[in-house]
Each structure stands twice: as structure tokens, then as C-alpha cells.
């Protein structure tokens, strides 16, 4: 399955978003949180994101979903075209869409497209 890494400024936000996406998409989906800095503060850590990518990677590629600002810039440093890609999507909606698509066995391009569809989802 395609891995999904949620990159947030906040460790709590990333972890809870992973729990939510797992709850909806299933426990088997390789979705991992990379939130905050290594000393537990708000921010982005390239080392934490790198570790999360390794944990989420089953050989089918990884989609990174950052929240904003330095999460985006730091996640972009790890992009490998065709292998580790970044989704420019709303954090929660994109995470859930990507996790469901990954759990459904879609390839990397399919998971990325599913995440990106979340950008246009209306709630009402």
C-alpha cells in the first residue's frame, strides 16, 4: 500500500489526524504522523519527517500531506519524483481521502489524485 505521512507544525494535530484517518480508512493503512519539532515544540523537523517516510514506505511510494508554512517547505525537501510526492490539499480532508485510497489499493498516482480531489469537496 501507498504510505501517507501527515506533516504538521503540531505533534498533537498530526497524531490525531492520523487516528481519524485510520478510523475511517482502516488500521492497515500505513499512515504516519510527523508533527512538531524534535524537542516537542511547534514547527517542522526534517529528521522526524524522514523517519515517518521510512516507517510509512512499503515500497509503493509515499504521499506527504503538510499543513502549512515550514511544514510545506520542509516536506518538499524530501520529494523524490514518482516515489515520494507532496499533495497540495486541505490537511484533514486530504489525509482521509489519501488514506481511503491507499487502503483501497490504489497506486501512488491514484492516491495523490484522490487526495487532490479533497480540495474541491463541498461540505454543504
Amino acid at each position, binding site marked *: 500500500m501507498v504510505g501517507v505521512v501527515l506533516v504538521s507544525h503540531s505533534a498533537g494535530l498530526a497524531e490525531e489526524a492520523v487516528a481519524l484517518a485510520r478510523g475511517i480508512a482502516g488500521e492497515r493503512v500505513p499512515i504516519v504522523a510527523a508533527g512538531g519539532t524534535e524537542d516537542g515544540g511547534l514547527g517542522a523537523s526534517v529528521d522526524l519527517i524522514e523517519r515517518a517516510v521510512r516507517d510509512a514506505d512499503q515500497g509503493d511510494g509515499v504521499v506527504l500531506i503538510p499543513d502549512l*508554512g*515550514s511544514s510545506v*517547505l520542509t516536506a518538499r*525537501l524530501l520529494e523524490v519524483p514518482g516515489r515520494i510526492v507532496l499533495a497540495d490539499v486541505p490537511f484533514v480532508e486530504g489525509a482521509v481521502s489519501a488514506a481511503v485510497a491507499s487502503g483501497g489499493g490504489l497506486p501512488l498516482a491514484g492516491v495523490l489524485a484522490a487526495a487532490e480531489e479533497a480540495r474541491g469537496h463541498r461540505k454543504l
Partner: protein
Amino acid sequence: MDTDFFLAWFAGMAELIRLRRDHLTELDAAIGDADHGTNLDRGFAEVRQALAEWPPTSPEQVLLSASNTLIRRVGGASGPLYGTAFRQMGKALDAPVTPAGFAAAFEAGVRAVARLGKAAPGDKTMLDALAPASRALTQAVQEGVEVREAFERAARAAEEGALATIPLLARKGRASYLGERSIGHEDPGAASSALIMAALASVES
């Protein structure tokens, strides 16, 4: 320009950023999250420490070491941005480093910042100081002026570019959430970029 030149440049950056730390943080308090000065001061102090602990043997190694430290140790957006600039600059440098080679590598670094941040001049970012500095440097080198003079022109262009961000509307970064309220403040990233260029102009050679 040898390894010592690049070490002196980074030592100068660390000193200038320490001196101007509170000013950078004040600029960031107006339109950002008030951590630019402290983040950069910590990051560049660690750059110096890493360079002292594992002495580099080439200009490229100086730049790559600084890049690694900044990417890993500056929590905010400026870490990946400056880290990428120095990494690309390091990769683009050929030994021995000539003024023309330096200018071309610097331009490669500035372009990498624009790509990573998807920013353009006029967006009220560090690019508003770095891009004019790069242009001034390239032009000065083409005119064949002395390297010290070329660096001084680049530093002036960066300083003017930073001040020219005051009337701009921020289109990137946290300040962009403020919309029109970002107008009237100097961009902290452009201000720190001007310090990086000022440090270049004051390296004793």
C-alpha cells in the same frame, strides 16, 4: 576564494545576525510570529559550531555543512529556504572559486529558493533582497570590477531590496494571511538576507 573565505563569511553572518537578532524579531512580531531573530541566531550559532567541530576542506563542504545545520536546526521556514540556497550554491561551485563562478553559484542558490517557496520578486519575501543582490553581483562581475566592490554592490542591492518590501503586500508565508495589514512593514526574511549579503561584503580578503 578559498575555504577560509567561506568560513569567514559564515562567521560574519552569525555575528551580524546576533547583533541584529532583536531587530529581526521585532520586524517578525509586526507581521509574523516573532521568532525570526531567535531562530536564525540559534541556527547560525550552530552552523559555526558544526564548522568548528568538523572542519571542512573545501568551499563546497562549508556550504553543505551550513545547509544541513540550517535545515535541521531552524524550526521555521527560513531554515529550509536558506539551507536550500546554500546547498544549491555549494553544488554549483567549481574549484577554484572565481568571482564569476561565485556569482553563478549564488544565482543557482537564489533560484532554488524561488523554486522551493514558489515565490517571485515582489511577493515580500527574502527573494526581494536576494534576487537584486544576485543581479548586481553578476553585473559587477561582468563589468570586471574588483571582487570587494562587486560584493559591496550586491550588499547595497540587498539592503535596498529589503527596504523596498515595506510598501508591498505579502503574498507568501505567514504575513500573507494578514492581507493589506502586511503593508508598511519590512519583510524580516528580506532583512536577514540583506545581513547575509552585508556579511559577504565585510569578509576580510
